[in-house]
């Protein structure tokens, strides 16, 4: 579905990511973890087509990414900057839908220009073109009203699915941080993305809210089978949320290892995290992130989660 091959990006002489290759299957949730500054955001922006790679390539569904692909959604960490304070919550969520319809109407106006060009030479034809345009403009304005209603309906449904049904007509700055990030997630869901990219989406909220948002993400991701790439520097989160964890090295970022996570679904903040398997994976990812080798002997067997697990 998503294929990244030898992706390298430099800023001037400074290498941000080097030779990153990875693959993500349809419907998979892959987490990318690495120390701060190792190039996680750079990788994500290259995948999103927001930043051209220095070398290597990104292929999405067989098509090389050279610009922002259709039906992509990105959720950034800083919700206060990526939500628009002058728009209501519903209008924020409906905004990406506007891009989709706009693309259609842009095509229409390009066709209109093709009609206009020969018309310049022929006065009669030009008059015909003008009256045609007036008729089509009236039709367009009627369609615009119903399209706006349709966009709002989609936005309301998306808000409902993140538990913010009653907040459509508030403004982002009237909501708490966790709620604002829910709005950002609703906005991402509203455009029914085929690929969802998240750059440390829960890094700016408190621990409790973070767990709630992780569970929200896992729920909607499972319901809709959205292929998701989640960047985080939180090792627990990378294991808890991921089907697979990709560990990057300190900058310039390279893939140090991939760790398959076969914790059963649905995951649960308490029962999943008290599993012995979770503790083992967390320790493994943690060592990989720190770059410390695994101890020759088996890891210490007495860890708190294990004690909990032995209780019935």
């Amino acid at each position, binding site marked *: 579905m998503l294929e990244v091959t030898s992706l390298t990006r430099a800023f001037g002489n400074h290498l941000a990511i080097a030779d990153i290759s990875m693959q993500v299957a349809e419907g998979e949730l892959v987490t990318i973890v690495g120390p701060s500054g190792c190039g996680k955001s750079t990788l994500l*922006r290259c995948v999103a087509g927001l930043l051209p790679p220095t070398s290597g390539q990104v292929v999405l569904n067989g098509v090389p990414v050279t610009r922002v692909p259709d039906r992509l959604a990105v959720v950034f960490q800083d919700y206060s900057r990526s939500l628009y304070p*002058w728009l209501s919550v519903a209008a924020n969520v409906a905004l990406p839908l506007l891009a989709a319809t706009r693309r259609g109407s842009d095509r229409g106006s390009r066709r209109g220009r093709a009609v206009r060009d020969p018309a310049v030479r022929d006065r009669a034809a030009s008059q015909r073109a003008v009256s045609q345009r007036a008729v089509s403009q009236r039709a367009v304005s009627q369609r615009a009203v119903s399209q706006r209603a349709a966009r709002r309906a989609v936005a309301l449904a998306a808000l409902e699915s993140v538990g913010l049904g009653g907040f459509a007509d508030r403004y982002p*700055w009237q909501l708490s941080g966790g709620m604002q990030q829910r709005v950002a997630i609703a906005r991402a869901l509203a455009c029914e993305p085929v690929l969802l*990219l998240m750059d440390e989406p829960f890094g700016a909220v408190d621990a409790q809210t973070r767990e709630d948002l992780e569970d929200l993400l896992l729920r909607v991701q499972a319901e809709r089978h959205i292929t998701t790439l989640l960047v985080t520097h939180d090792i627990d989160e990378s294991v808890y949320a991921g089907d697979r964890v990709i560990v990057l090295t300190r900058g310039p970022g390279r893939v140090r290892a991939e760790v398959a996570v076969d914790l059963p679904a649905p995951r649960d903040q308490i029962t999943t995290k008290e599993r012995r398997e979770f503790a083992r994976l967390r320790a493994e990812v943690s060592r990989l992130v720190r770059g410390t080798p695994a101890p020759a002997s088996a890891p210490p067997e007495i860890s708190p989660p294990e004690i909990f697990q032995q209780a019935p």
Partner: protein
Amino acid sequence: MTSTAWRAVSESRAGRGAAGLVILFGAAQLALWAGRVSPAAFPLPTTVLGSAAGLVRNGAFVASVGDTMLVWAQAMAITVAIAVPVGLLLGTLSGAERALAPLIEFLRPFPAVVLIPLVLLIVQDDTRTEVVIVVYAAIWPVLINTVYGVRGVDQLARETLRSFGFGPLSIARRVSLPSAAPFAATGVRIAGSIAFVVAVAAELVGTGMNGIGAFTASQESGTGDMAILIAVAVWSGLIGLAINAVFAGAERVAFRWHFALATSTRELP
């Protein structure tokens, strides 16, 4: 007055301003009554108040206010129509801004009134000259604030829109314009006050112009009644205050989100 009412007055800005005026007024009245300042050299504040009230029924004065405000409105419309688009452009194209910044810094400090003879030579019409002069003075705050506003547009806000498939023009319209708008509006408010002051000054200096400044000049050479001159100044001040208040109020209504954000960031520890 009860103590709570006192506190309410002393805590509101308008209340404090009004209190200051009353004190000044009272002090001047007392000084003149006590004979410290000769009433011939300076009219009693109560006399000035009487003249100010009389001006409302003075047809020539009311017409002059209308003339000034008409020039003001035309000049403000032209100022906004020029400075906002140019500011958006300069703010977006950083190269253009860097190239033009020295020119702007050179042109900006010129006292606009000095340009009256030159503009009159070119435009050949007194009222149009006045409009040009006022535009010249008013354009800078709008231009500079708009550029500043566009400069401040958040990179992440743009990138978010780009990630949803919007092109550069849509991003300019949907992100740069709305987030620069409160800054442009501040520029317009400042320009509104400047435009009024410069219009009156131009009318005082320019010979063939109408308006409050011309009315003042005619009073000065005619009756020489100082109370009326001060009364005109009082009315001018009130009009200037009103212009500022109207713009400030409109800003608060139109850009509620901007002020809400400003307050919430200030409240953060």
